[in-house]
C-alpha cells in the first residue's frame, strides 16, 4: 500500500540524507519525495510517498524517522482530510497548429500550455497524482517527449472531520 508521510524537519545539512538513507536501509521504496521551506525559518517540510507492506513496518519506520534528531514531527496523513498536490510539466510533440486541439483536452484538467516551439508544446498541470496520470494517458497519442514531476506535497485541511468519515478522504490507493 502507498502511504503519505509528512515530516517536519530542521533545515540542516544531512537531514535529507538521513531520512532517505533510513528508508533505504529499512527497505522501503520511496515513490516520491518533495522538500521545501515552511512558514517558519529554519524548518522544512518533506512529503514522502512510500510503498509499505504492512502496518507493523509502517509503524517501525515512522518511529525510526521520529528518532532522528533533526526530525521534529512525523505523521502518516494518508487517511486524514488533506490537500495534496503535485505539479507536472509535459512536453508533447507537435507544432502550434495542434494548440487548440490540445487546449480542448487539457481544459477540463485546468492545465496550461506554458511553452510553444517549432515542434513541441509544454503543458503544466497541477493536481492529485491520479489526475496527472489521466492527463498523461490522454496526451500519449501525440507523442510525449519529456515529463518532469515534482512529487506530491500535502498537508492537513483546516477542518478535520470525525473519525468515521475519514476513509472517503484517502487521496491515493
Amino acid at each position, binding site marked *: 500500500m502507498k502511504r503519505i508521510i509528512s515530516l517536519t524537519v*530542521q533545515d540542516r545539512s544531512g537531514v535529507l540524507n538521513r531520512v532517505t538513507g533510513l528508508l533505504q536501509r529499512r527497505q522501503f521504496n520511496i515513490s516520491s519525495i518533495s522538500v521545501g521551506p515552511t512558514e517558519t525559518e529554519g524548518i522544512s517540510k518533506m512529503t514522502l510517498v512510500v510503498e509499505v507492506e504492512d502496518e*507493523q513496518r509502517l509503524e517501525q519506520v515512522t518511529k525510526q524517522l521520529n528518532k532522528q534528531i533533526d526530525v521534529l514531527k512525523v505523521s502518516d496523513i494518508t487517511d486524514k482530510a488533506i490537500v495534496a498536490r503535485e505539479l507536472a510539466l509535459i512536453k508533447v510533440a507537435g507544432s502550434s497548429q495542434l494548440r487548440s486541439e490540445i487546449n480542448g483536452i487539457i481544459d477540463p484538467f485546468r492545465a496550461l500550455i506554458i511553452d510553444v516551439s517549432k515542434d513541441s508544446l509544454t503543458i503544466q498541470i497541477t493536481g492529485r497524482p491520479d489526475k496527472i496520470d489521466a492527463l498523461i494517458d490522454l496526451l500519449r497519442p501525440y507523442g510525449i517527449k519529456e515529463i518532469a514531476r515534482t512529487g506530491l506535497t500535502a498537508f492537513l485541511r483546516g477542518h478535520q472531520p470525525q473519525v468515521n468519515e475519514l476513509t472517503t478522504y484517502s487521496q491515493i490507493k
Partner: protein
Amino acid sequence: MKVEAKPDFQTSTAPKTGADLLIDLLINEGVDTLFGYPGGAVLPIYDAIYRARGTIKHVLFRHEQGSIHAAEGYARITGKPGVVIATSGPGATNLVTGITDAMMDSLPLVVITGQVARGIIGTDAFQEADVMAITTPITKHNYQVQSISDLPRIVKEAFHIASTGRPGPVLIDVPKDISAGELFEIPAEGTIDLPGYQPTTKPNPLQIKKLADAISRAKKPVILSGAGILHGKASTELTAFAEKHKIPVVTTLLGLGTFPANSPLSLGMGGMHGTYTANMALYEADLLINIGARFDDRLTGNLKHFAPNAKVAHIDIDPAEIGKNVPTQIPIVSDSKEALVELMNQTSESPEAGDWLATLNKLKEEYPLWYKHDPNGMSPQWLIEAIHKVTNGEAVVTTDVGQHQMWAAQYYNFEKPHRWVTSGGLGTMGFGFPAAIGAQMASPGSTVVAIVGDAGFQMTLQELSVIYEQNLPVKIIIVNNGALGMVRQWQELLHGNRISESILHTHPDFVKLAEAYHIRGYKIESQEELITKLPEVFAYNGPVLMDCRVLQQEKVFPMIAPGKGIHEMIGVKPS
C-alpha cells in the same frame, strides 16, 4: 557571534584557536581522558592537547580501532561518554567498526574526526573522506562544524545526545581551518537547541497499572533483563522488584550482571547459548516482562516459537524497539529505573506462581550447564571457572567474539553490574583486548581480565604497547584452541563437518610476542600449570599475557541452531 566573558574555562590561558576552544569545551564536559591518534587534519587539535597537558590526559593507541574499542570499554564501565580523536580520511574510516559497534550496543561515545579545510571539501583532497555520509547510518547523530562560534553548542549537544535517552555514538567532524582558525573572541557558552530530541523517561501510569494487574494475574511470569538496566543504573531496583513478586529472571548476553547469578530466582542467560531453563521459561511463560532488551534474533531464535503463550510487556527508553520484533501488549516507554520505581509503588498482588517456580527449579537441577573433563587437556569452560575462582568472581571481564565469549558468559557467574564488557550486537572480533584497556583506565583499582580468542586477539594485539606504556595491569587470557573456534563449530555442526579456512595452522609464539612488548608472558598447557601459575599472575600488579592451550574440538552447548525455536535446543545434556 555573541561576545561574553567566560570565566569558567579551566585552562589558565585563554584559548587561541578553534582547537583550544574545543579542548576547553571537552574539559568543561568533565572529560579526563582522550583516546586518540594524530594526523594531518588534527594537528591543530594536537597542538591544543599539547598546550592543555596536565589538564587532560591523552592516550596514544597504535591503531584507531584500538582507541575506539578502548573508549567503548571506558563508556561501558563508567556510563560516561568515551571521547575519541582521529584524523581525517584513513583515521576516520578506521573508526567505522567501533562506531557501528557502539551504535548496536548503545554505548555513549563522542567521536571527533579531523576533516580537510572547508574550502577544499568535495575536491577529493588528500586524506579526504565523506565521513558525514559514511557515519550517518552508524551514529545517533553527527555534525560537521561550519563555524567556530557553533563549537560550544555542538559539543554540548553531542554530549547530551550521546549520554541521554538510548545512548549512542555522536560524531563531530572538524575541518582543519576551523580547528586552526584563530579565535578572536570567546564564543558564548553553548546552549542546547534540540527541539526534535526529547526522550521520554517517565512511564505512563496507565500502562504501569496494566502491567501491575497482569503480574497479579500471571501464573508463569518471567523477567527478561537487558542492558537497559545498566544504562538506567537500575540493578538494585530490578532485584528488589523480582524478589518482591518472586518472578524469575532471564538475562540477555549484555544484561549479565544486572541480576545476581547466584539468586535462586536467576535462570541465567537466555538465547542461542543460554541455559535450557532460561529458554524454556521464555517459551512457556504467560507473562514476559522485558526490561531494556531489544528482542535480538540471537535471543529469540525463530520468532514463530518465541514466547508463544505470553502476554508481552516491554519497558524501553527507545519507542522504536517496542513492537519491532515481538508483538507487545503492554508498551512502556521509559527509563528502566523510573519504571521499576513506579512498579514497586503499585499495591497490586504478587502472582501465584509457586508451581511455576517449582517447575523451573526442577529444570535447573536437571539441565545445568555441562562440559566433560578431558584427561588429555584443558577444557575452556574449566579455564573460565578457574579464572572466576582466582578473582573471587569480582573481576571486570572483557571478551572478544567467538566460543570463548560464550564460555565466559556461561561460566563467569556475574553477581554485579558494570563488570562485563563484550561486543553483543555487532559481534566484533578485535574488541576484547582494547576494551579491557579502556575498562582498566576507567577503573584503575579493579582486576581487569581480557578473555580473548587466539584469532580475535591478533586483530588488535598492537595495543600491547599501550598496556606497557601506561602500566595497566590488564590480564590477557588467550583461550587458544588453534582455530576460529566458533566458525569451526558451525562448520562441524551445520556444514557437514567441512572445516573450511577455520584452523589456524601457524601461530606466533605468544609468549615471545608479549616479551617483545616488554610484558610477562606464560604458556599454559595443562590444568596443573594453570593452577600453579594463576595466583602469581593475579597477585602481580602489572600486565600479563597467558597463552592457554585448550581442547580444539570443544563446542559451545547448549545451542539453538539457526532457524530453530527457543524450545529446540541441542546439547542440553552430555551425550
